[in-house]
């Protein structure tokens, strides 16, 4: 048990890079304090935003169902969503922490039972899942509580259910991943499997999103609700049959002050704990085995062809080009960077594109849509296209994590005879190349869907480029000012990097806010080109000019 607890603690520290206790005699640094405060505020902002989104969606569900006397279904919905949400997030987290680094191979050499090792990792990930679940469920409990004033036990059962629901979701994630990785060992290609697993996870997350959107849409339709939510053949009964934990949660919360509630909750606990218990009992050994050889890769021996190989590969290029090529390779060859970065540009349009292609005619043929379509083709479409281009062009997190990702190599890079400015501008060029690619994808897709004219497409692409460039440069400034340099798992430089969160929110804010203003003010094409093209372009130049000097100063100050 002691081993298990200290391993869990170690994993938690390692995942989240918890600050170590300050060394004795360490200087008080107002900058560090400010940074901590800033990150604290950011966390609050993100939590607040999530709370708002969760709260709003729960509210919408409640308001759609209450008039029909079906508000109890809100509770079922909450249980289902808490499960699916933790499944999607947990799957990706479990995958990206499946093998963290060679430290874990050392664990295998220590007198640690595979069961302790795996259980500790499971527990560490579970804790963050539980936090998300509790948070989501709490927003629903509060809304339901205010509206319906249930028995106080309602909150206690709700809290317990929130803690229990992520357990089977995480167990399922490992149930899929452990055999997959074991198989990968046989195939000797874990990187590819990691990539495939990541795609599965992302598709799950997106699928969840789509499902959720459709559900919210359908809730506007009382006829649909009446047909599907009530009656013997209702969705509810089907769900109850297909996913007991959700059903049991619903039962416990529907009549909190009853023996039925207690029994339901006991049942829920039994069902939820059974999953992890079985996975830990049954798969720990396999898990430990699958860790071995994770860093294996195929060494190609050159033999007699070595000299020919050197002649072909060792070719002089301009230094800057070489810097950009290094950025590109370092990012695209790390599966977790690739999946959370550039791959988004391809994945999002593929999924949305399929929907558009499938539904285009039905969508555009709807008489209600005719007016909207006319508006879109009359200039508003260019704005939508531009905004989707901006979003794809800046969702890659390339620049806003670029210095953090280089943390391990920084001591070496700083010894090379290149100016900090050139080194960092190579990162910007990397980001801009993908911004252009993302803009083309985003604009192209919307242009195709809305049948935009060439003029609109050109204006939208120009604007997307200008704004994407600005956002990427802003991200670079951020990561230069406050890089995340100490991490164990490369994913920490990317996913747990506050800069990436700020950048995504910045992009959404700019795209959303700009779009809102453009629509409400009924902007002309000329004004659009000015505000969405020229102004960001000018801002880009204004931010770019002082950047190299700033980068040089910051890099010189970094102690690695």
């Amino acid at each position, binding site marked *: 048990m002691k081993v298990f607890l200290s391993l869990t603690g170690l994993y938690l520290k390692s995942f989240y890079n918890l600050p170590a206790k300050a060394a004795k005699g360490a*200087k008080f640094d107002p900058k560090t304090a400010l940074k901590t405060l800033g990150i604290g505020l950011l966390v609050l902002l993100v939590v607040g935003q999530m709370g708002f989104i969760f709260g709003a969606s729960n509210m919408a569900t409640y308001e759609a169902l209450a008039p029909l006397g079906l508000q109890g279904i809100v509770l079922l919905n909450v249980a289902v969503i808490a499960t699916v949400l933790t499944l999607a997030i947990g799957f990706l987290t479990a995958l990206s922490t499946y093998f963290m680094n060679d430290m874990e191979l050392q664990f295998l050499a220590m007198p640690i039972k595979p069961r302790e090792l795996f259980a500790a990792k499971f527990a560490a990930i579970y804790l963050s899942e539980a936090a998300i679940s509790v948070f989501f469920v709490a927003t629903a409990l509060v809304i339901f509580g205010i509206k319906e004033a249930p028995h106080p036990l309602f909150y206690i059962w709700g809290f317990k259910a929130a803690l229990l629901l992520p357990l089977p979701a995480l167990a399922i994630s490992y149930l899929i991943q452990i055999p997959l990785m074991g198989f990968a060992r046989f195939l000797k290609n874990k990187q590819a499997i990691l990539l495939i697993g990541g795609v599965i996870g992302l598709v799950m997350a997106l699928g969840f999103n789509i499902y959720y959107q459709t559900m919210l849409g359908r809730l506007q339709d009382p006829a649909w609700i009446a047909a599907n939510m009530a009656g013997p053949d209702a969705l509810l009964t089907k769900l109850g049959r297909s996913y007991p934990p959700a059903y049991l949660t619903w039962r416990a919360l529907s009549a909190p002050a009853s023996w039925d509630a207690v029994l339901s909750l006991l049942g829920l606990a039994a069902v939820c704990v059974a999953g992890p218990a079985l996975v830990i009992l049954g798969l720990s050994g396999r898990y430990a085995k699958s860790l071995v050889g994770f860093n294996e890769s195929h060494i*190609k021996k*050159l033999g007699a062809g070595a000299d020919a190989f*050197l002649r072909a590969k*060792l070719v002089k290029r301009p230094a800057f080009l070489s*810097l950009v090529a*290094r950025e590109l390779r*370092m990012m695209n060859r790390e599966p977790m960077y690739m999946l959370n970065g550039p791959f988004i540009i391809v994945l999002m349009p593929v999924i949305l594109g399929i929907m558009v292609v499938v539904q285009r005619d039905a969508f555009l043929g709807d008489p209600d849509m005719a007016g909207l379509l006319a508006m879109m083709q009359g200039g508003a479409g260019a704005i939508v296209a531009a905004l989707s281009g901006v979003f794809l062009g800046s969702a890659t997190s390339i620049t806003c994590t670029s210095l953090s990702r280089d943390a391990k190599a920084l*001591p070496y890079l700083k010894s090379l005879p290149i100016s900090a400015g050139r080194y960092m501008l190579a990162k910007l060029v990397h980001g801009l190349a993908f911004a252009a690619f993302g803009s083309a994808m985003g604009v192209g897709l919307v242009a195709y869907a809305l049948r935009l004219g060439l003029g609109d497409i050109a204006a939208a692409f120009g604007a997307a480029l200008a704004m994407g460039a600005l956002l990427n440069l802003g991200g670079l400034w951020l990561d230069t000012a406050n890089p995340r340099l100490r991490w164990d798992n490369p994913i920490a430089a990317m996913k747990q990097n506050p800069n990436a969160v700020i950048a995504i929110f910045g992009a959404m804010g700019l795209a959303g806010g700009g779009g809102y203003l453009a629509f409400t003010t009924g902007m002309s094409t000329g004004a659009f080109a000015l505000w969405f093209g020229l102004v960001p372009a000018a801002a880009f130049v204004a931010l770019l000019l002082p950047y190299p000097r700033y980068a040089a100063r910051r890099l010189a100050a970094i*102690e690695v």
Partner: protein
Amino acid sequence: MIELSGISKTYAKSAVKAVDGLSVTVKDGEIFGFLGPNGAGKTTTIKALTGVLKADEGSVRIDGVDLTAEPIAAKRRIGYVTDNPELFARLKAAEYLNFVADIYGVGDADRRERTARYAGLFGIKDALAASIGSFSHGMKQKLLVTASLLHDPANWILDEPMVGLDPKSAFNLKELMRERAAAGKTVFFSTHVMEVAEKLCDRLAIINRGKIVFIGALAELKALRGADGSLEKLFLELVDEGEGAQA
């Protein structure tokens, strides 16, 4: 030539001086050994010397070029082997060498010839098509050494270069150091093994807790030693005195 004068460095996150008023001059054609126990400040000094860390005080000149005033020109004159070869795991070895050669502006013929020579010498030529992540620790170390020589630097700076090398490779590396010194180039390396320093250095410095406790020629160090004591023992005594003075 490498000139360090009055280098001090305190890390932002700590209160102790990692390097404290350190001055060293290494002349052309010299192999200079930098000795000290773990945590003495060897790596910190080398990082200040290669421009990786900004020293709080003091100046660094490489072949007379001031590192702070003209960092690029100064860095061009250095070949650096870091103490941590865990970098760029995702790059293929040949890509990495090509990258380094591009940064230093090495021509096609030179980079091929030098890669063939040094990678061949260390027996990693066969593996150059593989990704660095698949290399053993020693192989990575050899790759770093190869990369550091691609631009034929006048000043070769190595941080614990023997760690992880097999005897034959360590021998080859020492031979390379001697060869470069004989050609009038400067070699500066750190180690905590007295024996290595004894066999290789023209001059050496011993540091402890950021301060030099001995600097001079090997002969001077040998003169310090009593009739029976070994250099190893002397080294330990010097370092111990340092501890006593600080405590």
